[in-house]
């Protein structure tokens, strides 16, 4: 990379570059090493893991931890639950949210202010855990998978961000479409949605990550193992101080390497796709926060 005169004049002194290197080197190590340690540990027999102070490579490579974990039966079901909840939850969230955001962005929509105030109020005040639980019980949702989909169905903050985006799109789009005879739905579906792909893609990513990682809904609204998501199953395996978990002590995984295999399984899918999508996440954050 050819440096012009200004860049050469303005370059950092060598000792500063060294400080930068040390600082970020340490930071990256701190970030990566724990994951690496667990990854290596999941592929090693426990004795080998305990004997090496710093685990850089999998000595005595074995997949016993993984096969043992899968034999416990819950992992596949948890994985299936997570995929189901994530896919359906994200699809419904995107559909309903985009429709509502479009409608709320139209200046000629009567009742816009009222609905907006409703959404904002819901964002600020949360009725509390118990009423939500009672509500879900009355709807017959407790202990089903649908409670994991329906309770967090639409995130008001994302709704507002999407609406702001739709408001920022040029009015001429709609006007020209109407001149060509398009009705409300056609304008939305055929014109605005394709043009709003950046926000749709980033919202989709954010929502998928939220759903995939959520385990508190499992703690609040379900009991028993059938409806566990991957993160919840992992939580059960790793924490045995919770009263609710102690009853299901057959799920306690005492074998440390199986626990590590569990961690890898729970974190791996996101970690694999994340590097490729990372710049979309970053862009999405900026769309939501800094205007102009």
């Amino acid at each position, binding site marked *: 990379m050819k440096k012009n005169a200004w860049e050469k004049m303005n370059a*950092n002194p060598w000792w500063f570059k060294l400080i930068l290197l040390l600082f970020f080197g340490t930071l990256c190590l701190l970030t990566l090493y724990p994951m690496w340690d667990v990854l290596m540990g999941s592929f090693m027999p426990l004795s080998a893991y305990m004997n090496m102070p*710093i685990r850089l490579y999998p000595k005595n490579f074995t997949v016993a931890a993984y096969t043992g974990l899968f034999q416990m039966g819950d992992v596949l079901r948890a994985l299936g639950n997570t995929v189901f909840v994530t896919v359906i939850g994200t699809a419904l969230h995107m559909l309903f949210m985009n429709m509502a955001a479009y409608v709320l962005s139209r200046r000629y929509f009567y009742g816009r202010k009222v609905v907006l105030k409703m959404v904002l109020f819901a964002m600020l*005040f949360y009725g509390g*855990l118990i009423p939500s639980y009672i509500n879900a019980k009355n709807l017959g949702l407790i202990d089903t998978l649908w409670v994991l989909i329906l309770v967090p169905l639409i995130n008001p903050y994302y709704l507002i961000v999407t609406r702001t985006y739709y408001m920022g799109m040029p009015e001429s789009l709609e006007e020209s479409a109407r001149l060509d005879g398009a009705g409300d739905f056609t304008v939305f579906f055929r014109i605005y949605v394709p043009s709003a792909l950046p926000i749709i893609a980033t919202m989709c990513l954010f929502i998928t990550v939220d759903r995939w990682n959520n385990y508190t809904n499992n703690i609040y609204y379900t009991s028993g193992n059938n409806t566990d998501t991957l993160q919840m199953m992992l939580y059960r395996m790793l924490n045995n101080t919770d009263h609710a978990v102690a009853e299901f002590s057959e799920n306690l995984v005492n074998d440390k390497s199986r626990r590590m295999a569990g961690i890898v399984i729970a974190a791996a899918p996101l970690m694999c796709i994340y590097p490729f999508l990372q710049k979309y996440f970053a862009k999405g954050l900026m769309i939501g926060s800094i205007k102009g």
Partner: protein
Amino acid sequence: MLSSVENKRKRRSPVGACKELLRQVKKHPVLYFMLIPCLAYFVIFKYVPMQGFLIAFKNFRATKGIWGSAWAGTRHFELLFRDAAFRSAFRNTIIISVSKIIVNFVFSFLLALMLNEFRSQKLRGTVQTIIYLPHFLTWVVIGSLLNNMFSLSNGVVNEIIKWFGGKPINLTTNPANFRGMLVITEAIKEGGWNSIIYMAAISSIDTQMYEAACIDGANRWKQLLYITIPSLLPTATIMLILSLSHVLSAGFDQVYVLYNPAVMETGDIIDTLIYRKALMNVNYSYGAAADLLKGVISASLILATNKAVKLLGGEGMF
């Protein structure tokens, strides 16, 4: 012009408003249909549970339901303020939250400034990818990683300390260290992600200013002090103020995964207290009162900080 007539705001009586609504529905039926699922969700899952506000003012008995239970006035709130556990949790929440806000802000600000000094785009991109990573992992995963690393017997942290000849340090069950551990681990987890905002602000600074400053003889340090930081101040102020509105939520996920009976006195926050009292001790009214208190304070903080940000010239959230 599309809507010059509709722009005039007429004051309508409720009956008139309903009639106008019906007319609009007939004109744009599709729009109202599109809004229905979202509205239904908000009503069913957000507004109906708001009856829960009442639980805080009643002696709630599950068998009698919300409406059948007897009124208790402000008794639960009085009990709340007298409860030592609640006062302790409240104090912890504020201390932990404020520490987190300050440390997170300083750390992510520094990260953005330092990342800006990278000359090579590829290197910067790689480093960014690595430091954004912990944000995407849940505290369940990271919590267990931390428990692994901080283990007194063979955790990596203590191994390194022993190698340097020091005494192993207890980070998980020592109340004195717990808050610090919470704050620092959260800073490392979220620091990278939070620095994105500042990086975006930095990238919008005009490079001509740097060139002019360089020609005038400013070295990089002075450029940092007189160009970068002043340009970032508006963004930083807004972020700081907005994060103040969340001061009562000190991070349930993190604390829940990492805390244990030994660190209750310094580590218990309002959210974990509510969870324990409400779900485990089945003291619903206590939980509801605490929830309501927290909700009211948070809402006022959000509105106040939003107003403050608007007054300072930024764009609030609403």
